[in-house]
């Protein structure tokens, strides 16, 4: 694996390897000394063209726990209209000797271009590009599901799963509902591909205006009715997507006016206490953050014992450690990393 650009590029074996490595990384994070020497002397650049403190901090923490040198490069705004082009930024990083570039960009495909235009030799990690992909988010989501639903022998696959070490396991038979603004969501796209690859069954739930034309080729089901999905499919995990309030106004990009107002959205697609009660006991509630409490998720749901939202954040560090480790150190140095 040279880059991590899209979950669509990951085979089942690739994905399981990342999750297994993340589990080993997570185990080291309960030690008193959390720092590993693995990437000492390597340089990881966080190249963020879009504000995302949470994701940047997660990657920064992951790189630092592996003893890499971290450079944060914030270049907010359109690259062309406000100064340096992506190409010149890339050439600058190349000249500085970046071993890995973690890129967040508002333009779909910018990480792909960075990886393949011949500007840099570094490994490229997509930390979210436009409406396209956010692969480490999907990986941390899968990691979280595996811990809760596979390790603990949850009801997936008709309750046939046996509790125990999930190492080497996929998510076969799990049912996952992904709810909200699918159209604009890189989290949804990443999860649909990865969860499908890992054997889970995904149902996307959204108002028709927030489902992309062309979704019919995705490996998932689509529903416009949250109550039906919760009651009839009895999902093992419910993932709520962030809804941007500006999506309802008529002047937004892409035409806006995706739903009449926040109240109606919440009424039809928000996860609240009543809907929570429709779910099986073992079902977990997820959210990639940051949450709009009261819009797509109520405080009752967000703070319930089923919610694993804070744990997703913690798992994000382990997954990103695993990704950086596999890209920069690879299998040969597994022993040196003290992971065996």
């Amino acid at each position, binding site marked *: 694996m040279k880059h991590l650009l899209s979950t*669509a590029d990951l085979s089942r074996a690739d994905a399981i390897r990342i999750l297994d490595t993340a589990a080993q990384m997570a185990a080291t994070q309960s030690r008193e000394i959390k720092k590993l020497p693995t990437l000492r002397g390597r340089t990881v650049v966080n190249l963020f063209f879009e504000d995302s403190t949470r994701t940047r901090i997660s990657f920064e923490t992951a790189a630092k726990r592996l003893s890499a040198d971290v450079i944060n490069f914030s270049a907010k705004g*359109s*690259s*062309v209209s406000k100064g340096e*082009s*992506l*190409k010149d930024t890339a050439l600058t990083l190349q000249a500085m000797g970046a071993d890995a570039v973690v890129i967040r*960009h*508002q*333009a*779909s*495909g*910018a990480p*792909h*271009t960075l990886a*393949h*235009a011949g500007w840099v030799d570094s490994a490229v990690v997509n930390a979210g*590009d*436009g*409406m*396209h*992909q956010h692969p480490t988010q999907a990986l941390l989501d899968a990691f979280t599901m595996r811990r809760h639903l596979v390790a603990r022998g949850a009801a997936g696959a008709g309750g046939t799963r046996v509790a125990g070490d999930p190492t080497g396991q996929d998510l076969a038979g799990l049912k996952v509902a992904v709810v909200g603004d699918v159209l604009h969501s*890189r989290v949804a*796209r990443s999860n649909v591909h990865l969860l499908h690859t890992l054997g889970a069954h995904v149902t996307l739930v959204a108002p028709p205006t927030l489902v*992309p*034309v*062309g*979704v*019919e*080729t*995705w490996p998932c089901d689509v529903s416009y009715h949250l109550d039906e999905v919760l009651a009839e499919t009895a999902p093992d995990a419910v993932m709520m997507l962030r809804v941007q309030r500006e999506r309802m106004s008529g002047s937004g*990009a*892409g*035409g806006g006016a995706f739903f009449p107002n926040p109240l109606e959205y919440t009424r039809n697609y928000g996860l609240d206490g009543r809907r929570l009660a429709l779910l099986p006991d073992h079902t977990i509630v997820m959210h990639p953050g940051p949450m709009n409490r009261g819009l797509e998720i109520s405080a009752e749901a967000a703070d319930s014992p089923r919610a694993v939202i804070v744990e997703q954040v913690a798992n994000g560090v382990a997954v990103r450690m695993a990704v950086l480790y596999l890209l920069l150190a690879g299998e040969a140095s597994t022993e040196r990393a003290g992971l065996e």
Partner: protein
Amino acid sequence: MSEQTTTPTYVLRGAAPLGADPVDLVLAGGVITEVRAANSPVAEDETVVDATGLVALPGLVDLHTHLREPGREDAETIVSGTRAAAVGGFTAVHAMANTTPVADTAGVVEQVWRIGRDAGWVDVHPVGAVSVGLEGTQLAEIGAMAASAARVRVFSDDGKCVWDPILMRRALEYVKAFDGVVAQHAQEPRLTEGAQMNEGVVSAELGLAGWPAVAEEAIIARDVLLAEHVGSRLHVCHLSTAGSVEIIRWAKGRGIDVTAEVTPHHLVLTDELARDYDPTFKVNPPLRTAADVEAVRQGLADGTIDIVATDHAPHTREDKDCEWAAAAFGMTGLETALSVVQQTMVDPGRMTWADVARVLSAAPARIGRIDEGPTAQGRPLEVGEPANVVLVDPAARRVVDGRTQSTASTNTPFHGRELPGRVVATFLRGRATVLDGAPVEQVAGVRS
């Protein structure tokens, strides 16, 4: 200065006019003077061009070229763009109005026309803007442009849609006074805000904002009805969807005076090419699906689509060497158009060379009303007609290299692809602009 004193008499020996039996075509004094039996004896003062195995077509006419001058001479100039046109077999191009400043006054169109005439590669016919500054609010001085030395007959805000139905109606009516035509870039603006590529399966996966087919079709449907209502002539630029073909077919069946064009790239490329986020394939209207490609081929074959026009859109390297969303829309086409038409239409047997002459020469010249008068284009290859001729080797194959083309820009979507056919020679009113596949540098001041 007359042409007779500066231009040799050419004998195009063994050329196959429109692919028919070979003959010797004699070009002298700017016209076709004789059609002799193939391999007839030649006089001493005649220059022989061996055209054995070559197809002779009337000089090609492009109704849709972006020459970028004035304003973006870093991407293309009138000289470099018209040289590329000649290399592609063209003898006339219509230069779109979206320059800086916009070609919305008699002054700008006359400047473009004069520079083109002085360059001498092809006839340059400026297209006038429909609205001031392409802003879509106030009619440009259409009458002044029509009456200028450039004699503008085609008006377009291309790059932008004349979206306001009242402005479109007025433009359609206004150009009737001098038999002009409004060439519409059909793109409903609200449905395409921020649009990056065809809306469908590929855009859904790539997370690029979609440019839905309906945004094109809705405007075309409106415009054919407007043209019918006011009894005007409408031309639809670069239609790209199966639905658009259906609407044009319906409109023609109803007797509406509408013509339509398709670009070479929409005849062969699909939105699958966006998957690598290579902005070379970013174009407006966007590349569509394989079903749309088949529909426009069918429409071209059955005459629903009247012409092929290049929408040659050169861009600087920096405008394409970037992430998809930041890149400019457009691709070059003058030097590959004929090859693409051969590949998609002639070689599979869907069109004859006579059809090619129709869609790439006679029909565009007729739409632009440049098919009569002293600089008539798109005429038949007959004695007494202007000697605008292109010789094509249909058996040749070539690998396109964007770096060696005559256009000043490198954004050809066919770079590295093998295409059939090669333009061997081009003659503009009897004067060779291209020989042996290479442009013939012009002597300053020579006009034809």
